[in-house]
C-alpha cells in the first residue's frame, strides 16, 4: 500500500494502481476518452491529466501509477485549461454533426464537450476525408475519427487481424485500413469489435433500417422476423431496461406493433443446427480424418470469414451445417412458405442479430435461392433495432409481453444459450449424448463449457468414448488455439469458435457502453432462460420434431443436406 493525497483527500492505495483507478475507487471522477482498460492505456487524448505537486508538467492519470507521498489535484486551473484546449483541438479535427450522427445520443466526445462547457472553438476545422465503400457492412467515417487508436488496438491485440493502421506519421497522421487498401480487400472478419470500441461515430454498421421500413410499408410482402438468442439479453439496454424488463416477449409485442407479420426465434433454428451439427459430429468421430484435427463449428460468420482468409486449409474441418440465421432463412422460404401457402418471394425474411458479419453472411451467393432471392433478406443489428423502435417513438416499457409465433418461435434452452461462448458446444453435447445413448443426461452435465475465459476445455465421455471439446472466443485466442492444434501441442475433437469476446452477447452489433465490456453481464440472462425453460434439449423441441416429421425426415437426410448444409469456399466471403 502507498499513501497518496488526491484533492486534499488522503488515500491508502495498493502499489501498482493507476491514478485513474485510485481516483475512481475514492469517488473522484477523472474524464477519459482514448483510455480503454487493459487495451488502450496510451495517454494520447490528454483528457485524464492531473496536477502533481512538485512537477510543472501535468501527468496522465490513465497510465501513471501511484507512488508513495504523491500529492495530486484533479481540478486545478492548469488541468482545466489543458483538458479544454486539448478537447477543442480534438474537436477541430472531428466533424461535429451530432444531430445526424449514429452515435448522437451515445458519444463520449460529446459528453466531454458538454461537461466541460466547450461552447465555442478557437481553431480552424481540419477534416480529413477518406473514400469508403458504403455498401460494405462496416462503415467508417474518417472525418469523425479522433485517432484514439482503440480500433487499432482491439483489432491488433484481441482479434489479431491488423485491419486498422496508422497510415501516416507526422502532420498527416491518420487511421485507415492497413496500407490504405479497400476494406473489402483485406481480411476483416466483420466482427464489429472496432465499432463497439469506438468512442464516437467514426465506425458503425451499414444502416439497413430504411430498407426495413420500405419492406414494412409494402402491402404485398409478409415480413417474417427472427430474433437471435443474445438479443434478449441486450436490446433493452438502450431504453434503460433491465434484462427482466427487456424480454424477448416484450420485444415481440413491440415488433408486432411496428408491423412485422410473424415474430420468430433464431433459437429455434439453433436447435435445428444442433440436430444437424451433433449428428455431423458423431459421424466425424466415427470417420476421423488422418490429420487428427477437430471439427469446428460454423455458426459464427466472423469466425468463418476469419477461417477463409487465415486458415483456408481448415475449411474442410468446419461443420457444413448452416448457421442458425441461415437455417432459419432456408426453412422459412421452404417448409414454412409451403405450410403457409406463400410463395418464397412474398416473404421478406429479416433477422435481428448482435452482429455485423451476419449482414455479409446473408448476402453470400451460396445463401441465395435458385430464384435469386436470398434466404434472409435483411439483417439488422441490435443497435439498428433499437434505433428503429426509437424512430417509431415507442416506449417499449409500456408494452405487455406476448408469445412469439408458432411454430418457428418455439425454442429449447439449449438454443437460447447459443448466444454465449460455450453455449453451442454445451447444446451440441446434450443432444450428441442423447443420439448415442437414446436417453438424456442431466442438462447441466456439460456446464464446464460456461464461463468467460478466452479458451475453455470440456472433457467428457459419451458411451465410453472420451471427448474433448474446446470453446474459444476472440479471434486472437482462436488463432492461438489453431496454431497449437496444428503443431500437435493440443488435441481435441470439437471446437466452438465465436469471434467476439464472450460470444454473441459481446457481439459487434450490440448496444455500446463506452469503455465497458458487457458480455459477462449479459450471459447470465441466457443461462437463466435455459434453466427456467421446460425444454432444455434441442431434440425435444416440439417444433423441431415437427419440421423433421413433416419435411426433413432425419438429420443429414438428403433434403436436410440440400437445405440446411453448405459448402465453405474461401473464394466466397
Amino acid at each position, binding site marked *: 500500500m502507498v499513501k497518496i493525497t488526491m484533492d486534499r483527500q488522503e488515500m491508502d492505495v495498493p502499489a501498482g494502481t493507476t491514478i485513474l483507478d485510485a481516483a475512481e475507487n475514492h469517488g473522484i471522477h477523472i474524464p477519459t476518452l482514448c483510455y480503454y482498460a487493459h487495451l488502450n492505456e*496510451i495517454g494520447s487524448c490528454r483528457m485524464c491529466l492531473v496536477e502533481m505537486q512538485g*512537477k510543472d508538467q501535468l501527468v496522465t492519470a490513465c497510465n501513471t501509477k501511484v507512488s508513495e507521498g504523491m500529492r495530486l489535484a484533479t481540478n486545478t486551473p492548469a488541468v482545466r485549461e489543458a483538458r479544454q484546449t486539448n478537447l477543442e483541438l480534438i474537436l477541430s479535427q472531428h466533424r461535429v454533426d451530432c444531430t445526424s450522427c449514429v452515435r448522437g445520443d451515445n458519444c463520449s466526445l460529446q459528453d466531454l464537450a458538454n461537461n466541460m462547457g466547450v461552447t465555442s472553438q478557437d481553431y480552424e476545422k481540419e477534416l480529413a476525408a477518406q473514400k469508403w465503400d458504403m455498401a460494405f457492412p462496416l462503415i467508417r467515417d474518417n472525418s469523425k475519427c479522433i485517432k484514439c487508436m482503440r480500433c487499432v488496438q482491439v483489432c491488433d491485440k484481441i482479434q489479431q487481424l491488423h485491419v486498422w493502421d496508422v497510415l501516416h*506519421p*507526422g*502532420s498527416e497522421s491518420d487511421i*485507415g485500413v492497413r*496500407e490504405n487498401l479497400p476494406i473489402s480487400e483485406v481480411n476483416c472478419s466483420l466482427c464489429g469489435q472496432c465499432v463497439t470500441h469506438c468512442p464516437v461515430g467514426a465506425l458503425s454498421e451499414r444502416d439497413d433500417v430504411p430498407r426495413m421500413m420500405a419492406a414494412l410499408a409494402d402491402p404485398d410482402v409478409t415480413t417474417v422476423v427472427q430474433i437471435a438468442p443474445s438479443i434478449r439479453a441486450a436490446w433493452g439496454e438502450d431504453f434503460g431496461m433491465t434484462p427482466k424488463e427487456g424480454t424477448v416477449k416484450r420485444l415481440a409485442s413491440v415488433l408486432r406493433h411496428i408491423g412485422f407479420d410473424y415474430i420468430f426465434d433464431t433459437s429455434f433454428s439453433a436447435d435445428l443446427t444442433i440436430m444437424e451439427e451433433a449428428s455431423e459430429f458423431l459421424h466425424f468421430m466415427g470417420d476421423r480424418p488422418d490429420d487428427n484435427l477437430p471439427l469446428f463449428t460454423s455458426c459464427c460468420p466472423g469466425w468463418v470469414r476469419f477461417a477463409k482468409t487465415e486458415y483456408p486449409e481448415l475449411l474442410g474441418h468446419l461443420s457444413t451445417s448452416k448457421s442458425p440465421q441461415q437455417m432459419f432463412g432456408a426453412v422459412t422460404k421452404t417448409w414454412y412458405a409451403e405450410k403457409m401457402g406463400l410463395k418464397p418471394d412474398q416473404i421478406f425474411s429479416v433477422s435481428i442479430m448482435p452482429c455485423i458479419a451476419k449482414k455479409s453472411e446473408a448476402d453470400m451467393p451460396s445463401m441465395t435461392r435458385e430464384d435469386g432471392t436470398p434466404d434472409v433478406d435483411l439483417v439488422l443489428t441490435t443497435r439498428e433495432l433499437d434505433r428503429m423502435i426509437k424512430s417509431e417513438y415507442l416506449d417499449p416499457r409500456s408494452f405487455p409481453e406476448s408469445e412469439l409465433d408458432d411454430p418457428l418461435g418455439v425454442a429449447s434452452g439449449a438454443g437460447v444459450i447459443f448466444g454465449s461462448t460455450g453455449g453451442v458446444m454445451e447444446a451440441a453435447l446434450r443432444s450428441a449424448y442423447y443420439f448415442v445413448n437414446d436417453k438424456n443426461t442431466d442438462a447441466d452435465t456439460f456446464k464446464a463449457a460456461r464461463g468467460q475465459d478466452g479458451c475453455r476445455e470440456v472433457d467428457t465421455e459419451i458411451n465410453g468414448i472420451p471427448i474433448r471439446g474446446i470453446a474459444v472466443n476472440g479471434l486472437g485466442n482462436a488463432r492461438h488455439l489453431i496454431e497449437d492444434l496444428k503443431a500437435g501441442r493440443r488435441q481435441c475433437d470439437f471446437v466452438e469458435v465465436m469471434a467476439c469476446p464472450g460470444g454473441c452477447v459481446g457481439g459487434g452489433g450490440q448496444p455500446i457502453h463506452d469503455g465497458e465490456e458487457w458480455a459477462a453481464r449479459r450471459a447470465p440472462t441466457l443461462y437463466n432462460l435455459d434453466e427456467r425453460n421446460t425444454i432444455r434439449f434441442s431434440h425435444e423441441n416440439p417444433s423441431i420434431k415437427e419440421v423433421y416429421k413433416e419435411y426433413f425426415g432425419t438429420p443429414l437426410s438428403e433434403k436436410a443436406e440440400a437445405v440446411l448444409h453448405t459448402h465453405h469456399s474461401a473464394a466466397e466471403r
Partner: protein
Amino acid sequence: MSRLSLDTTTAAEQTASALYQSLQLRMAAAPTASCPVEIASAYTHLCHSQSCGKCVPCRIGLGQLENLLEAVKKGEATEATLDVIERTARSIKNSADCAIGYQAAAEVLRSLVAFRPDFENHIQKGFCSAPRQGIPCVQECPAHVDIPGYIALIADHRPTDAVKLIRKDNPFPTACAFICEHPCENQCRRNLIDRSINIRGLKSYCVDKATEDIFPMDKMAPTGKKVAIIGGGPSGLTTAFYLELMGHDVTVFEKRKHLGGMLRYGIPSYRLNRDNLQRDINLILDSGVEVHRDYDIDSAEAFENLKNEFDATYIAIGAHSHKALKIAHADARGVLSAVEMLRGIGDGNLPDFKDKKVIVIGGGNVAMDVARSSIRLGADVTIAYRRRQEDMTALPAEVEGAIAEGCHMDELMAPAEVVVDENDQVTGLKVQPQVIGPYRKGRPSPRAADVPPVVLDADIIVISIGQSIDSQKFEDAGLPRQWDQLDATAETTFEGHNGVFSGGNCVTGPATVIKAIAAGKVAAANIDEYLGYDHKVETHIEIPEPLLHDRVPCGRVEIKERPIGDRKDDFDDVELKLSDEEALQEASRCLRCDHFGYAAFREGRQRTW
C-alpha cells in the same frame, strides 16, 4: 550623430538564434522514422523562410516547391506532380543567385531520388510506408538492447538486474561498457532538451556495481541438436551463448590461443582490460559451450567435414588479416601491420618499442589503438594521415586521447615510400603533403600538394589502413563472396546452403563489436528456427515505472579518465567509473521513451525474441 556604431544584438535576434540552436538539437535527435515527404516539405519551408526575397527562384520557387511536396504528402498529387517537382528543383538549383536558394533545391532533388519509392507510395497508394518511431536508443542499437529498461533499473538501485537485462540481448555487457561505439546515444530524445544520456557510462557503472553475473533466463531442456561455431569472437560467442540457453549443444572452434576475437586481439587492454573481457566470456562458457582452442578450420574440406558432423554451422571468423599498403619497401624490416602487432599484445607478447620512433599510418580506431599502445611501450609516436584530423574515422575521443598521451599528429601526409638502409631496415617514411579538396562520396578528398615530399624519421612503421578476411576456403566450399566478405543475407543465411550461417566482420567487413553481437543474436534465432524450434529468449524482470520529475536541462555526466601522466606508461584502464551520485543523476535524465511517446502504443518494448 556618430558616423559608425558597434553592432548590438536585440532580444529578438537572441531568441531567433536560440530557436536555431534548438532546431539543431532537434535535428540531432531527429526521429529516423519520419515521413520522408513531410521532411522534404518541412525542409523546403524552413529554407524558404531564410530567403531574403530578392530573386525569383528562391522567393517564389521554394514556396511552390513546398506546395507541390505538400500535395504529395496529402495524397492529392499525381505522377505528373513528381515531374514538376523535379523540374522546379532543378531550375532553382541552376538559377538561384545565392546558396540559400540553390543549396535548398539541390537537397530536394537529392531527396527526390533517395525517397522515390516513398513519394510514389504516397501518390499511388495514399499511405506512408516509412517505419514508425519506436524507442530511439533501442532502435539504433544493432542488438536492440532494452536500454530504457536497464537505465530504469539503475535508477532503482538494481545494477545486477540491469546487467541481467542487458544479457537478454547482448552477452558482452562488460566489454561493451568499455568499448561500444554507442550508436544508441546518437538519436537520444534527450538531445531535444540538452544532450543525449551517457548510456555507455551507465552501462559501465552497472557492470561495475553488479554483485553477480547471471543468465538472462534459465537454460531450456536439451534438444540434442549440435551446432558448430567457427570463430570464438563476439559474434560467435553470442550465438553460442543463446543457442546453449535454448538447449542446443554448441561447440566453438577458435583458431587462436584465447577466446574473444578482436576484443582480445584487436583492442588493447587499456581500453578493455582482460579481466573484464574474461568476465563476459566466463558466463558464456558457464552456459555449457564446448571450446576447441588452437583449432583452425583451415580448408574447404575441413569445413565440409564439420558441416556434415553438425546440424548447423555458424561462420564468424572476423576480419583478422591486414590490408597491405602498396608503396615501395612496404615489406622492409621494421614495418608491421596493426593486426599483427595487436595480436602479439593480445597473446601477451609486448614488442620492445622503448625510445623507438614509431610512425602509425592510418586514421581509424585501430590506428589510434596502435599509436596509444606504442606510447605505452615507450615509443615516440607520429600518426601520419592523408586527410585532415577531423576526417579521421576514429572516434573523436580516441583521437583526442592519442594526442593527449603525446602522439604527434601529422595530417595531410600521404605515405609515398618506406625509406630503408642497406640492410632493408626502416629509417623513415617518405610522405607527400596533401591539400584537402572537393568532396567525393560524401567526404573531402585530398590531393598531392604542389610541394616536394618530405621524409619523416622512423624506426618502426605500423600500417593500419584496414583489415581483410581470410575467407578463400569458404568460397572453395561453394559459399558466395563479395570481395573478401562472405555474402550472407540479412538473416545470416546463404541461399542454397541450408544449415550454414554467417555474420559479423567476415560478412560486413571490419565494423563495430555491437554489430557483430547483433549478427550473433540474429544467427542464434534463425539457427533455432532452422533446427525446428521456437525457443524464446526472455528475461523476467519488472521494469520500474518512470520517474515523474520534470525533465529540465541538466548537464550530461561524462566518463572521467586517469590523468595522462599516470596512464600513459601502463596498459591498465584509462577510464574511471561514474560515482553513485553521477550515475543516479544520469539515469534520472532518461526520458523513458519506452513509456512516453509512440512506444506506449506500438513499437515499444520487445520482451522476447
